[in-house]
């Protein structure tokens, strides 16, 4: 019920000089109204590519599979090609906060002008109204001196301020769905806490659905309701935050949790997951994690078990191979 976003069987590939790279494989996810889905996974696991697929922001060399579905409000947006259709998702229904705050702002246009312009593009309102909404949003994200900031360029703001301005811009169109890609990675923990609190309040107030991408499990634990763990383009485990963090089943999820530095025991050595992530050019067949699995089953190790999520507890899904080796 009231599912805002549903992704079914999404594959994303890129044509490159060295051949075709599979960046995302058979990903299915959903987000309800008012729900925060956290996506975790290491660098290169396909988190950003998945989010960009929702807004059709992947570049020209991208190939989506025929039967992929990205359904927002009953419409399969992955088939959208016309400008009119794309306008409905970008900035209207869906807003994205990017990994690099500088990338969201045009360097030579003032912050305020960009916010106003974006609102005028997506809402049927007057310029003055757009300005007052923008100023209000800047205030709400905790920026003081909003009139002055409104007239500044992105590079003139500190990192934390820039990130908050970006969040204000993404929220100002009141999207139904917010895609936040590492929104707090560049911030120190005190500013991060400030920004997370404010995002949570606004999400609640407007009942937005949110995809929150990060590699920080602590941030996920404090922010998300649901969690999906990605490895090499695949979702290997998903479920409620409580369940996944307290009762992880997949060896990769367990490895991620074990690798967290323990601040209560500074003498404990750091425990990385052994081995290297394969290059996207040599993706393993069968279970994508098998080359690094600490206790693989015989069939799993030989790549004989196909990737497929199975439900091990109500609402807790694990890849079938990872569920067996433990």
């Amino acid at each position, binding site marked *: 019920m009231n599912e805002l976003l549903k992704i079914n069987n999404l594959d994303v590939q890129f044509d490159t000089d060295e051949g075709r790279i599979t960046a995302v494989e058979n990903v299915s996810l959903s987000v309800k109204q008012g729900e925060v889905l956290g996506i975790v996974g290491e660098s290169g696991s396909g988190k950003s590519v998945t989010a960009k697929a929702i807004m059709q922001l992947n570049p020209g060399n991208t190939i989506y599979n025929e039967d992929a579905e990205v359904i927002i409000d009953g419409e399969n947006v992955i088939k959208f090609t016309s400008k009119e259709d794309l306008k409905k998702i970008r900035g209207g229904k869906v807003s994205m906060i990017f990994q690099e705050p500088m990338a969201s702002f045009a360097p030579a246009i003032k912050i305020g002008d960009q916010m106003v312009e974006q609102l005028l593009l997506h809402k049927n309102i007057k310029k003055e109204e757009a300005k007052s909404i923008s100023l209000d949003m800047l205030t709400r994200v905790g920026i003081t001196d909003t009139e002055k900031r409104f007239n500044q360029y992105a590079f003139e703001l500190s990192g934390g301020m820039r990130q908050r301005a970006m969040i204000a811009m993404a929220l100002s169109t009141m999207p139904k769905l917010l895609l936040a890609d590492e929104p707090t990675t560049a911030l120190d923990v005190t500013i991060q806490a400030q920004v997370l609190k404010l995002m949570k309040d606004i999400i609640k107030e407007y009942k937005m659905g949110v995809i929150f991408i990060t590699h920080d499990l602590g941030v996920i634990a404090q922010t998300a309701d649901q969690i999906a763990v990605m490895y090499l383009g695949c979702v290997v485990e998903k479920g409620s935050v409580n369940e996944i*963090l307290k009762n992880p089943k997949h060896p990769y999820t367990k490895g991620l949790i074990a690798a967290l530095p323990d*601040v209560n025991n500074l003498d404990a050595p750091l425990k990385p997951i052994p081995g290297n992530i394969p290059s996207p050019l040599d993706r393993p067949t069968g279970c994508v994690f098998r080359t690094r699995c600490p206790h693989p089953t015989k069939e799993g190790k030989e790549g004989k078990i196909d990737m497929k999520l199975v439900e091990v507890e109500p609402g807790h899904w694990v890849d079938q191979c990872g569920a067996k080796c433990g």
Partner: protein
Amino acid sequence: MSDNLISVNNVSVNFDYQENFLSKKQKIHAVQNINIKIKKGSFFGLVGESGSGKTTLGRAILGANKISSGNVIFHDDDKDYDLTNISKLELKEYRKKAQLIFQDPYAALSPRMTVRDIIAEPLEVMKITKNKEETDERVREIASKCRLNLEHLRRFPHAFSGGQRQRISIARALVSSPKFIVADESVAALDVSIQADILNLLKNLRKELNLTYLFISHDLSVVAHVCDVVAVMYLGHIVEIAPSKELFKNPRHTYTKALLSSIPSIDPEKQSKAIELTGEIPSAMNPPSGCVFRTRCPNPGHDCKGGDIEMGLIEVSPGHWVDQCCASSK
């Protein structure tokens, strides 16, 4: 012979800023009056909020930023280099001995060069090796120390994952056999598992190659695990320095306490006891007088409010230094 490899004495770095060509020139006080000593063979951590001056200080120590006042001394075995008073020739020598590992493993590696060429480039630029054979040998040696697959040296960087790319940039930084490494947010973009792996690698290489590190990060939990000593920066100033364990057990400065309390817990049910900070970070063009943190301090002491007590570190226990205003206000 000194125990220290680096002495930073009263260093300030200012940048000029002008809104437009008609307006008055202003100064950005990026780094103010910093004093630190980095022991030979240590892992020195530098944490602090975005814009507090960590990168600027790191670059000043590498001789890559102009130092506005004060000096930086590099104590080599046989001689001292004073970076504020250094000849071109000496600066060249120093560049071989002090290297930077870049923040972003994606942006730092040229996509059109093979991994071998990327690692070899500093050797060629600094004319360290005499011929191609010697270069190749050195590249292979350092690549295997950084646990890179030697068969992959002919590949281009885009075929590698974030963690592997970070190892490539570490190999590149280490190829000229430096003694001192500045690692600026070298693991921030990586997930926890790869972070742990890279940090273990840096730790092992420290012993093997006799390295000293300045490790810049905003992730306190990571810093605590690898660094011997940690300095906390806020708005251009170091507000506290202590051995890592001491800093975690016994933080004295209010900003340090706020930092430690804000590390997000992985337990979703754990009620957060974070000391909440509100308000904006003041501008580095116009920092507050007295304690620079006082405009955001949740419970400033009676003496702090006026901003009359000048910033300056005092030693509260062996090796544990705190800004004097905070040390005395409670």
